[in-house]
């Protein structure tokens, strides 16, 4: 099959993403590029591992009925994934334009989908408002599974929640609390271990990376009282 490659949409730290088309269908072509700063052997292992995991995760999530891009072609020699193009805008771009109720609805659905993902033993690894697409019909798609993986460890799920909440907080600080609450409504409904995850998330925020003592005490207090 021939893939026509169009304009570059994004350049990440480890991949370049292009628009393209294959048999008249709009696609995204993600190429994991070589990096000269990596040890050559490591470079190969790294690109191969991340490409394979990304495709497997997307396929598994599709089977669970989640909204993620569909992988169409995989080239393990050149570390290329061709997947369906999601017509929409990033949540990070529309978050300030959307009204309160619509946004809460969206966050509830993100929570539901992330819950289903975690219940399947999969974590995203880079869950931020830039890795969520919103279509015109207000459908929610999770994208970019480049750092995702399989784990039954609550830690990984808690990191997803922590990163997602932090990214919401940096773009919409005034609404972050209610949005996280909406997210949790959807999340609880689809993931029975949600309490464990929330506990761990609080734990992560108290951990190693130094924070002011008073903030640490406040977080500790909250952990005991809530």
């Amino acid at each position, binding site marked *: 099959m021939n893939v026509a490659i169009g304009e570059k949409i994004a350049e990440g*730290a480890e991949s370049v993403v292009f628009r393209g088309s294959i048999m008249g269908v709009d696609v995204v072509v993600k190429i994991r590029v070589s990096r000269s700063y990596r040890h050559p052997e490591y470079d190969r292992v790294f690109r191969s591992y991340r490409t394979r995991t990304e495709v497997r995760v997307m396929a598994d999530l599709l089977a669970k009925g989640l909204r993620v891009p569909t992988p169409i072609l995989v080239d393990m020699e050149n570390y290329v994934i061709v997947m369906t193009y999601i017509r929409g805008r990033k949540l990070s771009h529309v978050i300030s334009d959307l009204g309160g109720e619509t946004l809460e609805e969206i966050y509830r659905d993100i929570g539901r989908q992330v819950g289903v993902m975690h219940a399947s033993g999969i974590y995203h690894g880079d869950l931020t408002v830039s890795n969520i697409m919103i279509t015109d019909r207000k459908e929610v798609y999770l994208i970019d599974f480049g750092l995702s993986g399989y784990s039954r460890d609550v830690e990984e799920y808690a990191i997803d929640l922590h990163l997602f909440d932090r990214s919401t907080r940096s773009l919409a600080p005034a609404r972050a609390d209610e949005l996280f609450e909406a997210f949790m409504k959807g999340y609880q409904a689809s993931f029975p271990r949600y309490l464990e995850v929330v506990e761990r998330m609080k734990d992560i925020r108290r*951990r190693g990376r130094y924070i002011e003592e008073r903030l640490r005490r406040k977080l500790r207090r909250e952990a005991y009282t809530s």
Partner: protein
Amino acid sequence: MSGSLSYIIPFEPPPLLRERITVLGIESTSHTFGVGIVEYDGGRRVSILANVNKRYVPAKGGIHPREASITHMRNSKEAIEEALAQAGLKIKEIHSIAVALGPGLGPCIRVGATIARFLSSRLGKPLIPVNHAVAHVEIGKLVSGLSDPLVVYVSGGNTMILAGREKSYRVYGETLDIPLGNLFDTFTREIGIAPPYVVGGKHALDLCSEWGSEFIPLPYVVKGNDLSFSGLLTAALQLARREGRVDKKRLGDICLSLRETAFNMLVEVAERALLTTEKKSILLVGGVASNTYLNRKFELMAGEHNVVYKATPQEFSGDNGAMIAYTGLLNFIHGIVVEPSKAYVRQRWRVDEVEVPWVR
């Protein structure tokens, strides 16, 4: 240090002060008691007149805060006298006193803070509070001439990616557990090849990496823009205990792979932050900034994105007094001073909580 070094402040300072002043800065947040003296010409030129640094080197194990602080106390008088002699100044001729009040080890910071409070109140000179992390960034910017870089700050106590935004340094990624320098120190100590951790500018890990050649995959933990090194440390130690005991080449392979993995993780998150912030330059600061292999990786990465890359030279990359004096000067010309009675030590003073008026 021989002779004085002269630099141009990489931004326009406020015209509040148009006179020549000298600032004495004291650093004591960790293993170094440092005294630096800078002279400001009232325009944009700063000269580093003195930079005297006395390091505490543990005989065994890591830094013992109490032992380090006792060493600092013993070294303090001599360090101050040496710095004044280098600068050819008397203490009375110094305009103001700057001190690193955090972040760092409490007992150590207290030594510098106590001396600074005393000098300030006894001699009636302004006292300027300085954040240690901001000082690392500022001296790096001064020496490299970069005005708005993406900053990678790596040392024994810190690992973070910073960029200036709206009067502060924002953290774009950091370690979730142990710092990179701590990872290297702990690993080499546990396998019995350190202390001393650094010999002739080379870390013990660089030395043992030379024995190996083969790459072994180890846990690579990047979470969003943050790093985690604790799992990597455990995995490398287990491997070293199982396989590296008798076989020197195998131990070399493990060292090489540990260094390779940790540096790749750091360069990857820096690369992500570079693309997010769209900065045009990268600056490496902190004690690990002089590492040849890390520098090579950053050069390659910067080359791929067509941005400027600079590492801070060794004299100013490790903890030093000059960086406190210079940052104190910047604080002073922006009106930041503190009453000696209110100059509290802040062990966990996060860099993103500091107001940095000269950053846009």
